[in-house]
């Protein structure tokens, strides 16, 4: 799907989604007709079945398959929920409504035997549908719970809202807070991107610093706030900015192991959403910093590594996402100095240091700006 999703109209997308849902229902129907045990095979969503696809440079599911079958009491209940959910989705698309995962969970209260026992279960069922139907939850009109992050920078776009189309310039038409990324990014069309590159920033404090210092204007940079581990919509937007506008993507985080994973999920995808990596991951994204090397070079204020930090770093040394010379060197260096620093520690050289000195120097080294 995917690649052409953005070129299809909403009606076309909905029709296709409806067809995919019906295909699942039809398969169950056939199984009943043949007197077979109803079953559904789904790639196993565990760490052991997530592999790093060298070709596309992203995380994908391996060959292991789990069956949901009606052969057990638990399995039969799962399939009953699946059947109810299929019907619910069909109605939702037909009526052009949308709902959140949490709403779906509460809705099931009226489903009798098909009621979900917890939200974890309904979330997993939506993931099952995403994988089996090769659909994204946005196509099912399921909205994520979390707020989308924000964008500021020279990007002109058109968003299809429930209240009609809106054309927005992400510098001129927005306040300092920036443009809020909608949950279904595929309803956004890029009209113009007069930018040199995209900078994804981990923390709100640093994002505000860049905006206050006018970094986006001075360097023609689209600043995307990741808000920690980025939401799907944020990753999808970054992916589309790269693919459709050919913009280089750089990621700017703290210098600690958890922040490297934020970079990893932007660039290579995550275990939970490996089936969507091809839509969400941008393998070409590059890491700006803060690097362990910077801690040494700039003598930044630091905190000591905790035991958890050390374990996480050691795990990253085994992680195929970080399996290259650069990361090996940086992680080993950090293990050696046993220290970590935050993005905002750069302020120890003054509030302008990050925009006047640090980032220009790093971007120059990387050949981005």
């Amino acid at each position: 799907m995917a690649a052409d999703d953005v070129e299809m109209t909403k009606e076309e997308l909905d029709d296709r989604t409806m067809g995919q849902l019906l295909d699942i229902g039809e398969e169950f129907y056939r199984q009943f007709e043949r007197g077979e045990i109803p079953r559904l095979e789904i790639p196993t969503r565990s760490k052991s079945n997530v592999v790093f696809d060298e070709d596309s440079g992203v995380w994908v599911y391996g060959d292991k398959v789990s069956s949901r079958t009606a052969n057990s009491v638990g399995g039969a209940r799962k399939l009953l929920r699946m059947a109810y959910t299929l019907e619910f989705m069909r109605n939702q698309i037909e009526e052009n409504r949308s709902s959140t995962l949490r709403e779906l969970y509460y809705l099931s209260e009226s489903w009798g035997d098909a009621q979900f026992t917890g939200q974890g279960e309904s979330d997993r069922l939506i993931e099952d549908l995403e994988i089996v139907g090769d659909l994204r939850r946005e196509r099912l009109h399921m909205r994520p719970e979390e707020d989308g992050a924000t964008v500021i920078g020279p990007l002109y776009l058109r968003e299809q809202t429930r209240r009609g189309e809106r054309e927005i310039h992400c510098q001129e038409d927005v306040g300092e807070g920036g443009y809020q990324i909608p949950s279904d990014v595929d309803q956004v069309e890029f009209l113009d991107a007069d930018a040199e590159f995209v900078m994804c920033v981990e923390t709100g404090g640093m994002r505000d610093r860049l905006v206050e210092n006018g970094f986006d204007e001075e360097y023609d940079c689209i600043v995307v706030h990741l808000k920690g581990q980025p939401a799907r919509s944020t990753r999808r937007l970054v992916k589309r900015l790269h693919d459709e506008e050919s913009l280089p993507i750089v990621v700017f985080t703290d210098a600690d192991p958890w922040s490297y994973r934020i970079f990893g999920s932007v660039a290579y995808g995550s275990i939970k959403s490996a089936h969507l990596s091809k839509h969400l991951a941008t393998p070409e994204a590059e890491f700006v910093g803060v690097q362990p090397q910077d801690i040494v070079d700039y003598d930044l204020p630091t905190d000591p590594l905790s035991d958890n930090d050390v374990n996480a770093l050691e795990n990253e040394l085994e992680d195929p996402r970080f399996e290259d010379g650069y990361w090996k060197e940086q992680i080993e260096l950090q293990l050696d100095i046993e220290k970590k620093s935050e993005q905002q520690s750069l302020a120890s050289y003054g509030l302008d240091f990050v925009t006047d000195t640090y980032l220009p120097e790093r971007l120059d080294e990387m050949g981005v700006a």
Partner: protein
Amino acid sequence: MYPCVTVSSQEKLTEDQGIEADVAEELAAEQREISVAEFFEKNKQMLGFDSAARAVVTAVKEGVDNSLDAAEEAEILPDIHVEIEDNGDTYTVVIEDNGPGIVKRQIDKIFGKLLYGSRFGKRVQSRGQQGIGISAAVLYSQLTSGKPARITSKTRSGEAHRFDVIIDTDTNEPEIVDEETVDWDRTHGTRIELEMEANMRARQQLHRYIKHTAVVNPHARVHLKEPKGEWSFERATDELPDETEEIKPHPHGVELGNLMRLMAASDSYSVKGFVQNEFTRVGGKTADSIEDGFRDRHLGREPSWNVPSGVEQEIRNAVANKGQQATAEFARLTRENMGGKATYSYVEDAVDDAAERVEEEFDKRFGDKVREDAVEAAWRHVTETRAETVLEHLEAATSDRKDPEALEELSERIAAKFDSDEDPRDRFTLKELRKAVRDSAASVEEVTEESFGDTAVENIVEELWTMMQTVDDDTPNVQDIAGDRNQSRALLEAMRAADVMAPPTDCLAPIGADLLEAGVRKEFDAEFYSAVTRDASVHGGDPFVVEAAIAYGGSLEAESPGDLLRFANRVPLVYQEGACAITQTVKDIGWKNYQLDDEGLPRGPVVLAVHLASTNVPFTSESKDAVANVPEIEKEVERAVRDVARDMKSHIKSAESRRKRREKERVISEVVPQIAEKIGEVTGRGTPPVEGSMAKILNKLYVDTEVDGDEVVLEAANYSNSNKSFELHCFVDSEPTLVDGDDLDVDVVDMDDEFDVVWRAEVSKGEKETLRYMGEEGMVSVDGVEDDLVEVRS
């Protein structure tokens, strides 16, 4: 019939379980000097009358045991009534039975001397072995209430009599203080009333005792009436237990004191005759081996030395004045007779034989003196090279790594030990031999580098002992042995060492698995029962049988430790549970493996009963509440309990799997049709059929009827996990015609107004079979498979 076994000394008991008889004799002697009352006071605890609470239980127990024994001996199904009356200050304990009854002259026997039991030492399984005897209860009653025991009895033929009996504490004899003829509505039986100082604090133990008695005597009816109420325990069978037979003691089970007494009382003269006559399982061959064993231990063995060359010359030199020719022939014959190895006895025989032959041939007398000289000369020569013989055996008995010089040294020292002035025949008992070898080895270790460990010494001893020969001297007669503790001990050891067949087990009367189970079944309301009777085994010289029964589930208490019922010779053991080998063995079993929680004893809705039947139940003490730790018995108890526990486990598992299956069926048959319905809505195609899918999910035999024009196809698909054979009936109104049914076992039966297509089918698991006929669709039913394992769709 009414036994009473007593001892006075606990220390003696723990030292040796089997010396009751000795102690009883000693006690009897001692008894003449102290009063019975005094004795009773001293030994209350041992007799089970240490508290007013326990006294009730003990008195009931003695009475009920006697009643059961009496009824069984008369082949009457026991009907026993126990009553406890509260008199305010005292209680009256009543035990009434339907036994044969007793007459006046039996009073003496039954309430006889406290210190004499008729049963001790006998090899027979009886309840009475355990009791102290009803006389102790009578005495307790008399001492605490001052009232006589009141006995009412009626035999089949006679009138009912009432006797008031006291035990004269000076003479230790029962005495009838009052007597009258009474009316009694029983046809026969005995009633004993004992008034005593008591209380009902041991009510729980009393109830346990009565209930357990009912369990273990399913042929008995027991009724209990006490101040708090009445309880009846009905019989579960009309079968009396098998009669038990007394057996003679087994050579492996006899104790020194008993052996000495048996010898003293025996008419046998020889050891061989004695062991054959007085013991079970001893035939001529076994008697020989016991006698030889006794010789070895009492007289010792003689070494068989290599005969060196030159012995002929030595003999010739020792003989004077018999003529050259006769002397040479005598020496040659002796040498020939001796062969390559000889013991002293062998040399003597060789000389005697040669002398007789030469006397005949040469008509010369070779008298005692000549013979003695020849023996001495020959033996002197043979014993000169003892060390060589010993060395040969040392080399055979030790590893190659031993230093040859040390071995040579050792052989010389051992050889020297044989050279004793005390016995020119070189005789050693095994003990003496061991000492000789050990001392020699120790002294060799002092002068050489070599050391001889315990194993090496033992190997050498064994090798030399085998080389030595049992002597054939006459053994002392039985009366002489009986008078000599050491000789008696030697005989006892010989008996224990002899290979003797296990004692016969037909003297035991186990309850039997079926009856034991019935006994548990009638007293405990459970969902599952199992019982086992193990084969007989032997401990010491006593045969025993262990039986176990288990009850599980039902209305048994689930949240408490399981109940353990212990029995010995059909008598419930209610006290000292913790000290009992049965309890300990049950606790050592890992109950988790049997699906129960393990708290030592199993926890859960379970009752375990363990019965030990033996001619001699080993108890930890004379109060006979706990079985002693005897490994053979523990092993059998464990096996019996594990046997029934295994049955229970498979019951729990299959009940569990049935429960799961039912639960699955319930949920699946609710949920799967809903899936189908919803899928019908989603696809807009209506609800798809679910029967086939359901049959597969529920592992059923699924019979489907398809109609194709005039052809009807019956398909039987076996989705279960086992092969199924069944009879399928299809009832049709008009006569059907089979299609290609040649390889199937099918009949069409005309039933007047309809036709029954009978198909006897076998379908392997996971397979399908089809039957086709031309005609109309019929009503299908399946016989031979449980209803809930078949799904028929039409």
